[in-house]
């Protein structure tokens, strides 16, 4: 045996020595043999002695160790080991696929380091520029693009959450024909057949239904299609349509124009039921610009002023200095009265509505607007009547705002149409059997078209129905073909932002399934099936741009996320004066009737995000409801009608009715029942199943946003609603400190005197215990003057920190997992001021949670973080009990989805996915701190201020959150904390929170306060 071993070792060495076979020998043999076809290696070909031995040996040299004759000792060793390890194979199941390294690694791709790409998120025809974090080719997190005017780095909650849709296991994954799995090729084949029939008729039976098209290239493709099929019609419809905005500008200017605002320049702003800061195009930017004027930095003692008149409390309403809750008719009459005071010319039909209430208010407002002159702004809500929009334009014009705070451009849409009219026509022509081929490009009209059209019935008249959509939904069910639509992170496109800034929508990942984009479908219909969408985009923009070097323009556009200089010029429009006020405008409804106000849901929008767990579980900005819509009514109306929270009522219009749970909202206009659309979907994924009720049944094509003939019929059933905040008063805790500007001018440090602070010396602890030797001590400051309560931070945190969704039942149980929540408090039941307060972990220096943990799973880091060691946590929940801020979250059950493969792709690889039985909490994004720390160590210089941005800070549209080093006197956080408005909450407990707040200062009009 020994001899044998020696021989083998010698041979091994020999093989190593002659690692490269003798090439000359090989060539020679090859030439000689001629007939031999296959050889395994050059050695074989050369027929070396070593190769012969290797053939005998069966195993390559590294595997030779145990191939010696088996000794008894080795045999026993092996047996023992195989017994011992026999069970281990169950622990790690190795993946079966082959792992192949990059032949040529993509540039900049370093495992473990994310890359960021600029793209844009389209929603309802308008885009928001974003940066997407990508880990090894997986997009994981959306951040705002600081270069893009729509957000300047901020985003809203929907944008943050849109990445989850990409990985939604319930999205449509295959082409289906009559419910059976089919192929894209098969679809094209049968589409071609239909189109060739249509071609002969010039497309007389062809109808395309799209959502609002904001993509210039798609618009061009559609126009090509219409050129090819001149008789065909292109319809547009979406539930959250901005018809009234378009109609209003047509009324005012004779043409639909795009209106956008420069809120930063506005000293006095009036919102007429407009949620300026939430949801609409440009809202993120408007919120940023508005709050930029409310910072009171460096001794600044001036603020802008916001008046809000609205039906239902909104983010914007909660920021108002003066807020009136009025029903729609009263808002209209209010606007007419205001216009009268401002000397705007109106023509009534037959006469103008009169408005007797709030006269002092209107007079003061008018005076304020007038004195602000061109630095004022009047904004009208998307759902308000066209005439009110026209009125708004007229007021802005008369105040001289056009050109300063109000700008007009060409419409953003490829073809601005009255969408409710458009869908009405489509339904009518389907009923009349004029439609033979219907191609639905995105959208779910069977669910969300106005109920009076009975779209589901009308569509049955069409011979060939195909739909491209992201989910298999109510419409897909009635279509012959369904093609899965690509997510915007999977496909090329382009889009314009609120101010017409154009961006390329660039994909970050190959489509996960066999999905197609609208461009691909349209391309196939106009004979460009082979043309990559990217090339189509390049072609389009090459025509548009005058850049000398298109390649450079293109690369820069992709890099920056903006197509340079492709913004529309500002339009000079002529107002058609006087504005005609139609009959019934501002006409009060009968006393025994209620107003129904339909609105898109702030989070699931028109229903498209109903299967998005993050959005479902994010509390609505003011109501704090999750997972459901409800009939929102004011406390006084609830009392009058004798209904209470969660009580089911029938909302009845003539001939229609919906069963809805009641939710009482302070600040709601009396007599108005606000209901969100988009819920009550019948066919949706597992997440959205059974959530909410369908308010769409109350919607008609003439009354898209509500009606005044609502009756409410009580029932005695209840439906539990999952609200994340049950208590609405601060109970003298001085959590949110606020004052009027006048008080602030005399007592800028008012916030510090609201409670008795414990003297710094009053502690049993060694105060030096938490001093940092790294020179970093992390802290955060949150400006309550800037927080609009939009919850973008909460969703960003959820995406960044792999926070699970728990579901309605668990939220009802009080087990939501949000690491940062936005608390909302009211001051009063009927005419409340509304306050928002984001609550991340306060990272107390004397943290009550730390000393009660029996296993030391939560400890203090040197830099002041209150760390959580998940591995060590046994889940006593004592820390949570002892946390006065209640910011700790517990995995009562296995909340994190460990099984769904696609969801694993979304997770942030730098953050642990927590198991059942473990406490978790805000860490100030410790993974981001560490990433920057590593970078700073590598370059050998300290961490710069602003280099670390927590996810919440990054997402915040208004820059209300700032994070940084409190030891650095130059840092922004130190600057904020030095503000006289700075205060900590519950500091009388001597917790010494590192997160502090800047008190809110309102700027009421003294003329209104007086009378």
């Amino acid at each position: 045996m020994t001899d044998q071993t020696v021989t083998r070792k010698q041979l091994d060495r020999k093989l190593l020595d002659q690692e490269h076979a003798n090439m000359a020998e090989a060539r020679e043999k090859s030439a000689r043999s001629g007939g031999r076809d296959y050889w395994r290696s050059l050695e074989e070909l050369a027929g070396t002695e070593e190769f012969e031995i290797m053939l005998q040996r069966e195993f390559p040299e590294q595997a030779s160790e145990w191939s010696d004759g088996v000794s008894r000792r080795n045999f026993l060793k092996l047996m023992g080991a195989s017994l011992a390890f026999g069970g281990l194979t169950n622990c790690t199941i190795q993946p079966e696929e082959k792992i192949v390294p990059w032949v040529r690694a993509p540039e900049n791709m370093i495992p473990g380091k994310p890359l960021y790409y600029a793209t844009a998120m389209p929603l309802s025809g308008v885009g928001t520029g974003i940066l997407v974090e990508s880990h090894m080719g997986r997009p994981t997190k959306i951040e705002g693009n600081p270069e893009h005017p729509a957000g300047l780095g901020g985003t809203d909650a929907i944008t943050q959450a849109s990445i989850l849709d990409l990985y939604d296991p319930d999205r449509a994954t295959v082409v289906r024909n009559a419910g059976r799995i089919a192929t894209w090729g098969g679809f094209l084949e049968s589409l071609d057949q239909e189109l060739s029939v249509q071609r002969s008729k010039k497309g007389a039976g062809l109808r395309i239904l799209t959502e609002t098209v904001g993509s210039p290239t798609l618009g061009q493709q559609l126009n090509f299609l219409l050129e090819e099929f001149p008789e065909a019609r292109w319809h547009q419809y979406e539930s959250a349509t901005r018809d009234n905005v378009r109609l209003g500008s047509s009324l005012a200017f004779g043409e639909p124009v795009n209106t956008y605002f420069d809120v930063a320049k506005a000293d006095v702003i009036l919102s007429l039921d407009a949620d300026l800061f939430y949801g609409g195009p440009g809202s993120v930017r408007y919120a940023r610009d508005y709050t930029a004027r409310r910072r009171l930095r460096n001794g600044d003692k001036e603020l802008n002023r916001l008046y809000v008149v609205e039906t239902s409390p909104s983010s914007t309403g909660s920021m108002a200095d003066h807020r009136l809750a009025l029903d729609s008719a009263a808002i209209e009459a209010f606007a007419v009265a205001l216009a009268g005071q401002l000397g705007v010319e109106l023509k009534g039909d037959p006469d103008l509505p009169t408005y007797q209430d709030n006269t002092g208010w209107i007079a003061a407002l008018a005076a304020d607007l007038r004195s602000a002159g061109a630095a004022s702004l009047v904004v009208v809500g998307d759902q308000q009547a066209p005439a009110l929009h026209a009125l708004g334009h007229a007021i802005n014009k008369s105040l001289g705002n056009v050109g300063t705070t109000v700008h007009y451009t060409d419409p953003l849409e490829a073809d601005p149409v009255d969408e409710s009219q458009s869908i009405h026509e489509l339904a009518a022509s389907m009923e009349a059997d004029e439609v033979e081929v219907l191609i639905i490009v995105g959208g779910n009209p069977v669910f969300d078209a106005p109920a009076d059209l009975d779209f589901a019935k009308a569509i049955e008249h069409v011979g060939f129905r195909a739909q491209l959509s992201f989910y298999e939904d109510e419409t897909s069910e009635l279509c012959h073909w369904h093609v899965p639509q690509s997510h915007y992170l999977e496909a090329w496109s382009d889009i314009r932002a609120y101010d017409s800034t154009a961006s390329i929508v660039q994909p970050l990942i190959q489509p996960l399934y066999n999905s197609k984009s609208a461009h691909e479908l349209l391309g196939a219909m106009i004979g460009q099936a082979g043309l990559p969408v990217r090339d189509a985009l390049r072609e389009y923009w090459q025509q548009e741009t005058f850049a000398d070097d298109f390649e450079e323009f293109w690369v820069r556009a992709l890099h920056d996320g903006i197509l340079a200089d492709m913004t529309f010029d500002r339009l000079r429009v002529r107002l058609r004066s006087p504005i005609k006020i139609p009959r019934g405008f501002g006409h009060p409804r009968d006393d025994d009737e209620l107003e129904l106000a339909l609105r898109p849901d702030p989070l699931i929008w028109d229903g498209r995000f109903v299967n998005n767990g993050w959005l479902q579980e994010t509390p609505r900005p003011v109501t704090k409801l999750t997972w459901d819509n409800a009939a929102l009514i004011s406390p006084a109306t609830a009392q009058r009608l004798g209904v209470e929270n969660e009580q089911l009522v029938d909302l009845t219009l003539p001939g229609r009715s919906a069963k809805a749970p009641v939710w009482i909202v302070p600040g709601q206009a009396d007599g108005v029942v606000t209901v969100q659309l988009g819920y009550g979907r019948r066919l949706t994924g597992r997440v959205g199943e059974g959530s909410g009720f369908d308010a769409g049944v109350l919607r008609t094509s003439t009354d898209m946003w509500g009606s005044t003939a609502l009756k409410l019929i009580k029932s005695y059933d209840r439906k539990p609603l999952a609200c994340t905040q049950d208590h609405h008063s601060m109970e003298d805790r001085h959590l949110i400190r606020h004052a009027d500007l006048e008080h602030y001018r005399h007592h800028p440090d008012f916030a510090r005197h609201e409670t008795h602070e414990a003297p710094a010396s009053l502690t049993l602890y060694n105060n030096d215990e938490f001093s940092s030797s790294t020179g970093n001590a992390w802290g955060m400051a949150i400006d309550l003057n800037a927080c609009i309560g939009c919850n973008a931070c909460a969703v960003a945190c959820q995406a960044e920190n792999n926070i699970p969704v728990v579901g309605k039942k668990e939220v009802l149980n009080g087990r939501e997992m949000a690491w940062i929540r936005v608390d909302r408090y009211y001051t009063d039941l009927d005419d409340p001021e509304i306050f928002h307060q984001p609550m991340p972990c306060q990272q107390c220096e004397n943290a009550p949670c730390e000393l009660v943990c029996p296993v030391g799973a939560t400890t203090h880091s040197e830099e002041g973080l209150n760390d959580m060691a998940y591995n060590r946590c046994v889940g006593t929940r004592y820390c949570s009990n002892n946390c006065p801020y209640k910011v700790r979250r517990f995995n009562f059950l296995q909340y994190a989805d460990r099984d769904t493969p696609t969801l694993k792709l979304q997770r942030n690889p730098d953050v642990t996915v927590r198991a059942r039985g473990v406490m978790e909490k805000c860490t100030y994004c410790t993974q981001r701190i560490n990433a920057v720390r590593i970078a700073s160590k590598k370059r050998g210089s300290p961490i710069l201020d602003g280099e670390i941005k927590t996810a919440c800070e990054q997402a915040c549209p208004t820059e209300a959150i700032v994070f940084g080093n409190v030891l650095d006197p130059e840092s922004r956080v130190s600057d904020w904390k030095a503000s006289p408005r700075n205060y900590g909450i519950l500091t009388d407990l001597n917790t010494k929170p590192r997160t502090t707040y800047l008190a809110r200062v309102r700027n009421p009009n003294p003329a209104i306060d007086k009378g």
Partner: protein
Amino acid sequence: MSESSTSTRQQYTPPPPELGPGQTSHTSITEKITSIVLTPHTPYQWFIVVLIGLMLVGLLQVSIAYLLYEGIGIWGLNVPVGWGFAIIHFVWWIGIGHAGTLISAILLLFRQKWRTSINRSAEAMTIFAVMCAGMFPLIHTGRPWLAAYWLFPYPNSMAVWPQFRSPLIWDVFAVSTYFTVSLVFWFLGMVPDLASFRDRAKHRVTRVIYGVLAMGWRGSAVHWERYEMTSLMLAGLATPLVLSVHSVISLDFSVSILPGWHTTIFPPYFVAGAIYAGFAMVLLLLIPIRRLYGLQDFITLRHLENMGKVMLTAGLIVAYGYFMEQFIAWYSASVYEGFMMQNRMFGDYGSFYWALILCNIAIPQFLWSKRVRRNTVWLMFISFVISVGMWLERFVIVITSLHADFMPSSWDMFYPTFWDWATYAGTIGFFLFAFFLFVRGMPVIAAHEIRTLLPFGKKEK
């Protein structure tokens, strides 16, 4: 029996005040006590109780198995109410256990002779109650399989220790020490009686079992001397435990900063509450057992009356505690404390508070009456009310303090689930099952100590 009755007739001496008229000789006492165990006849009521207990033990097993499988989310807990039924019942059971130690240790040191006939069963009650209690802190954790040993300081390669500043660690030591000392004390006390069983057992198997348990007790003077000394020493050890265990448990609450928990009065108030609840439970158990086994001569009305007096005293201390909580909430002028008390009385759980006042303060005042104290039905009723009241007290402390603390935005309600109740019912079942097994198989009354009560015994001493 005939022998003993003869001797009674021959020289009648009245029984000692601690015993009933029937028990006048060593033999009669030993006979009576051993006859409970060494008999083939078991009262049918015993089977009923044990069967109910066994069924509930099954429920307990299912509850715990499901808990381990699914997670503590099956209970009604949430944020802010991170502790619920598990902690309520932990404190409740520990409290019940206290009476046993008090009777056997403190009353032994104070040489309260009347304790002898109740101390054994009270000690057994302690053991079983602590078993029930000890289970809760473990299973209430999120990951009990780790908590089971990470809470103990054991040397490990990671050099990670428990955090000794946490009251939960103090709990671990307090409860495990308490259980160990109680168990040793209880078992040691039974040794002479087990030896009596061994000597009187007819069947070989029983003889062997009791023989092993008797650990070679021969009743020699040396044995007795060492036995007495050990008992005294253990009593000395156990005495501070009576005060310390529940004090430490109260620190779980008072060390925290939560309004309603952060209270310096908690240690004495908890100890008094424990004694209160413990005596109530002793009465609840002994009154039926005394009747069932005809132990009226051993557990006399005088015993019951004395226990009534102890309950009354403890109840008044507890009432003082409630009053002090109210007073301090007002006197502190703290908005949190003030709201907490307001919320306790008139908040969402206000009815629990008033029920607690009714059960723990109002109804037990009947114990001022000697007639009530000597009436078993009344005592049973009041003991039951006190047991409920003490449960309510823990509910009020744990739940109402947590559900509305500092941040109004986070306030939420706690609703127990089926599994919350099932686990609780399961521990009651286990307690009954274990206790009745003990009654059937172990000396329920310390015969050798009773014997010392006799005049003869006294003379001997």
